[in-house]
């Protein structure tokens, strides 16, 4: 990967973090941890990997994103605002009466959101249907499906993964946000799910496991999903819940947090400095 592209994506990831925090802080609290852990992934997807057009958000042959862990909405909204799907200032309307930006992703409210999610597990089957639909219509488009590791407790996920393999959905890319934490704490304490890569392989997926905080590694793994060979893809992203904001990442219970003015200020200053270093 070219150094300039890499820096561009790294800067985009920092901006997504700032945007998500902007939205959550404006509201006072929200799902901080799980939004921050997918910022680098979203940077790679919305920073070039996905075939999309912000001026034509419903273009049929676009690549699609299902953020099945719908509570990470603020991160998705950050990426969409930065790509011009709606004004950046609108981020501050998160969860306000009548907003287009609810805490959980809603395809009927937000320009650029491809699927409604929030009830964990349901996005996985929806993504299968979307990928199958594109195939049946002969469209050359991929569906990217972000799944939480806690979310993967849901049996529906594994019904969907079996379906994807059975129906040879090689235009489906499962992106498992392996941040090792769910709402009640560490997944290994709450509900250990074992070796994801082995599980996906056993289900008939092509798999990769990458550092989910490294845009270059994510980019390279995504590149390999461009040409399907009859099997769906699963990329296990080794991530950290709260990544990019040490004060958040250090808190074990960082699923949903209040964000004070002081914290927002400190975190933003830090991210600004990172951005300046990348762009300078």
């Amino acid at each position, binding site marked *: 990967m070219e150094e300039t592209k890499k820096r561009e994506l790294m800067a985009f990831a920092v901006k997504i973090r700032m945007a998500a925090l902007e939205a959550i802080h404006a509201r006072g609290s929200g799902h901080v941890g799980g939004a921050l852990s997918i910022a680098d992934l979203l940077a790679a997807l919305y920073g070039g990997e996905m075939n999309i057009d912000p001026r034509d958000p419903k273009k049929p042959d676009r690549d699609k994103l299902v953020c099945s862990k719908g509570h990470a909405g603020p991160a998705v909204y950050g990426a969409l605002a930065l790509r011009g799907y709606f004004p950046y200032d609108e981020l501050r309307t998160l969860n306000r*009466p009548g*907003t287009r930006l609810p805490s959980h992703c809603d395809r009927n409210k937000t320009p650029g959101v491809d699927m409604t999610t929030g009830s964990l597990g349901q996005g996985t089957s929806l993504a299968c249907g979307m990928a199958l639909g594109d195939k049946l219509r002969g469209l050359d488009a991929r569906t990217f499906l972000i799944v939480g590791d806690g979310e993967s407790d849901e049996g529906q996920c594994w019904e969907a993964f079996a379906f994807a393999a059975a129906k040879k959905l090689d235009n489906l890319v499962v992106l498992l946000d392996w941040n090792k934490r*769910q709402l*009640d704490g560490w997944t290994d304490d709450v509900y250990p799910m074992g070796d994801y890569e082995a599980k996906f392989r056993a289900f008939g997926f092509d798999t990769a496991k990458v550092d989910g905080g490294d845009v270059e590694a994510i980019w390279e793994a995504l590149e390999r999903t461009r040409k399907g060979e009859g099997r769906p893809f699963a990329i296990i992203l080794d991530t950290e819940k709260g990544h990019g904001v040490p004060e958040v990442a250090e808190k074990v219970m960082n*699923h949903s947090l209040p964000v004070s003015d002081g914290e927002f200020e400190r975190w933003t200053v830090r991210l600004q400095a990172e951005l300046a270093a990348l762009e300078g």
Partner: protein
Amino acid sequence: MTEIVYTGELDPRLCKSVLGETIPALAAEDPDVIYLDADLMSCIGTGKWAKEHPERAVNCGIAEANMIGVACGLASAGFKPIVHTFGPFASRRCFDQVFLSGGYAKNDITVIGTDPGVTATMNGGTHMPFEDVALYRTVPGATVIDVTDPACLISVLRQCVDRPGVKYIRVGRKQYARVYSDSADLPIGKAVTLREGKDVAIFAAGIMVHEALQAAKTLEAQGIQAAVVDLFTIKPLDAEAVARRAKETGAVVVAENHSRHGGLYSAVLEVLAENCPVPAACVAVEDEFGEVGPQDYLQERFGLTAGHIVSQAKAVLARKD
């Protein structure tokens, strides 16, 4: 002794804290009580206790349908499961398991669904059940409760542990207006008259009890005497009390934090239609999905305020002959 201590003030206790204390207390009293949750222990403050008592508390991960099945299996082994998750996941998400593995197979379980209706606030439409009561009412032999306040929560939870059938308790995690004294004993299936009145009967449940009492005050100032009856047990409904109050007043308003289809309004209308068809109206959610926002906004948005009750009371009075 049950005293009505309503002043309109909030009870200082958060219902999540009440759950976090009552569930361990029930487990301490009865070795057969077992608590299951789906990754939401920290939302009702049971996490610490659960860690210390792994044999009494099972975190089932985010897999609600499986959790209900496991609870039912435990019930068949003589345990008395208390199961918790958010309302939509305690109802819609696992309904067939509740219906068959629970109701039909006669495995007795207590299910607590938190943040019903508009109390789901910032979690938005996907987390805002306006239909959980409707679903649970259709399970033969089920008990369905919409909690009034912390004292009510403690009283019904204690009774549910040993009560046969599937029991569903919907309760918000935050504060409620205090209605009952601490030691309240509120027998399941018995309506409680909170206020006498001869002109119109307001039947309410859950957060709408407070709104109904406020509405009754406003109506009184306008010369209308409204009776307010707490129907925290939606099933089995106190049909006798409903019919009696309806006959006495000749006009009924039902107030619920739920869809107008299939919940308390439907339950009351079923009684009225067969016993005393008087004019009736509801303050409930129309045929709509939920949405995100603060609770006061949502109550206005979906028409669930004292003001709406006042209007409906007047409308129904106008239809009285």
